[in-house]
């Protein structure tokens, strides 16, 4: 079988390109430790969600100095809790599940993006370095009210957060 020399060059070029793509992703994943959504959040039967210690009472919980955990349930057609409020500079781990259909959780304009699948708990860790309000939306069709399904993450500046905490005590 005769392969033209340009054809050969193209073939080699194509293979190099492919290997390059794979290695950049491998590199970025390994070195920067970008967190992928995977099985680490565990599973939960949809029937057990409402009685669950974490998801029965959806909330934001402080677990360390700058560390927070959010136990979130996606319903038709709201997220609970909403809004999620944390201080600037905090590291927040979201645990999100659904006891109904499939939803999506996306913080608009960022790469915080996960499917919310009944039976599974999606776990994602996000560092909020900049104060401000972030829009959240459901990006998987979940029924008639899907277009209404939105939420918010409010990241408070340090001093504002202190005040809020003070007020609670």
């Amino acid at each position, binding site marked *: 079988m005769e392969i033209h020399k*340009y054809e050969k060059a193209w073939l080699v070029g194509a293979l190099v390109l492919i290997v390059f793509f794979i290695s950049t992703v*491998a590199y970025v994943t390994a070195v920067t430790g970008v967190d992928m959504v995977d099985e680490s959040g565990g599973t939960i039967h949809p029937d057990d969600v409402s009685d669950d210690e974490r998801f029965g009472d959806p909330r934001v919980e402080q677990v360390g100095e700058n560390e927070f955990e959010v136990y979130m349930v996606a319903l038709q057609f709201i997220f609970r809790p909403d809004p999620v409020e944390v201080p600037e500079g905090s590291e927040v781990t979201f645990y999100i599940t659904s006891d*109904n259909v499939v939803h999506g959780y996306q913080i608009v*304009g960022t*790469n915080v*993006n996960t499917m919310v699948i009944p039976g599974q708990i999606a776990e994602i860790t996000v560092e909020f370095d900049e104060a401000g309000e972030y829009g959240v939306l459901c990006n998987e069709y979940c029924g*008639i009210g899907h277009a209404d399904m939105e939420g*918010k993450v409010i990241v408070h500046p340090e001093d504002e957060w202190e005040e809020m905490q003070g007020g609670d005590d």
Partner: protein
Amino acid sequence: MATFIDRYPFEAKVVRYTFAVSFLFLALGAIGGMIQALHRTGYLRFIGDITDGSYYTVLTSHGVFLVIFFTVFFLVGIFTWAVTKELDRELGNPRLTKYWVTSMTVGAILTSVAIIGGFSDSVPMSADVLFTFYAPMGAHVLFYLGLTIFITGSWVAGYDWFKTWWDWKKENEGKRIPLMTFMVLTTMLMWYLGTIGVAVEVLFFLIPFSLGLVSEVNPLLTRTLFWFFGHMVVYFWLMPVYLLWYNVLPKLAGGRLFSDPLARVVFILFLLLSVPVGIHHQYVDPGIPEGFKFMMMTNTMFLLLPSLLTAFTVVASIEHGARQRGGTGYFGWLRTLPWGNPAFSGMALAGLMFAAGGFSGMINAGMNINYLVHNTFWVPGHFHLTVGTAVALTFMAGTYWLLPQITGKRLAAKKAAAVQPFLWFVGMTFMSNAMHRAGLFGMPRRTSEPQYEGFDYEPAFGTVAEIDAQVVGGGILLTLSTFLFLYVVVRTWMGTRVSADGGDEIIDDEIPPALSGPEDSPRVLDNLKLWTAIAILLVILAYALPIAHIASQGLYEGSEYFPMLLEVLTA
């Protein structure tokens, strides 16, 4: 010389019929697309407001009609044409042929009825589940039954072509499989392998689920089975396109295919790699370990290879054709190409858009970058370039060349036909570009009203209003282009028959042999059993562990049924 319709009247009738059904679905799909573009952008909302599910009825129909029925009905037509013409023999068994044609038609009707039922409150039927029908959302059982009957019909069609080839082989001992037939057979082997996923999903889970025979299913499992099928189907749309690009396009350019063996290699690579990649649609799914995602990503990247090889061969063959026609210079030869012939210009423009779609596809395929674009408007931006243009526009262009052969009539309305591909190209440039950009600032897909109360989008440049205008403007051009195409088809169909011995009225249907033919390529390329065995092995290697992992959480354990019926939800 007599053309296809004179030599194979029965097969010509089959092709005419499947094309007609295909184009009917194209028309319905285009209307749906227009409605979506108008509604999402807020330009015109007449199908009900946000609390009415009609948008999703339209969206389900747009997806299912276009990417299942329009594409597959066209595919079975063109494959029938290719096998019959190339092997120079009739499909051996007309009763079998009639069976699959009927089965596919009945299936498509049932599924369509279930979907369209969603428009009316008085019909206790609906299937607003979009073309991915993720459990635990449920459609009326007719939706799944229709799909089952449709797909089994396509399986029988594959058997029909295989049988024709076996009969040919008996009389042509020791000959290489002719190229187009080789493409048809490898594509169908890929289809058999990939449809196992959706067949298991529908037969063992969704139909029993919708009938209430089982009370729960595991939504991650059914989703994974869907995508086992769902990526392969992308290549099922694309293989008839490659068949046209390899065999017909070079000839339209005035030349011939560069290399027959390389075309075989490309189709073998698709057979091997198109299934064990499906999890790349589930990069952001919880419950699937990262290692499995990475493995599928690696396979996905290798799947770029056959498309990159195709780009080379197609461009080289076109250039060869242009030089035969007297073209010179580095790029000067481009000018000698027959841009006024819609069969050529349609396929060439489709190829160009496919290259652009390839770039955005590489972004999607990157496991980490995918987080930025997953389920945003970027994604429909991407696949309107691939399936929505590379496939749809090539099918239209191919029709301009094929229709005379299967009707015995000359192409009518030639001026309209000549502008149609350019109109599509311009329309899609606007619509797709705007969708990509909107996706980058987070605008979601699959949403009737992507305007929210709590926040505004922040485009890096331009404005949301300007992007909306491009989506609507592009959508209008695309819809016009679609109907221009249909107009040419109808006019041609109603024309007068060219007589079989019609002197200078010969209908062109010749496909010249490749520059380097199959003779000097290794015979192992034609060993379909070997390639199928390797393909199965690769699928097992890639999918056994992920599926075992997910299935171990319970097959019939997970979610209860959520029927997408208006009555139920609003009650």
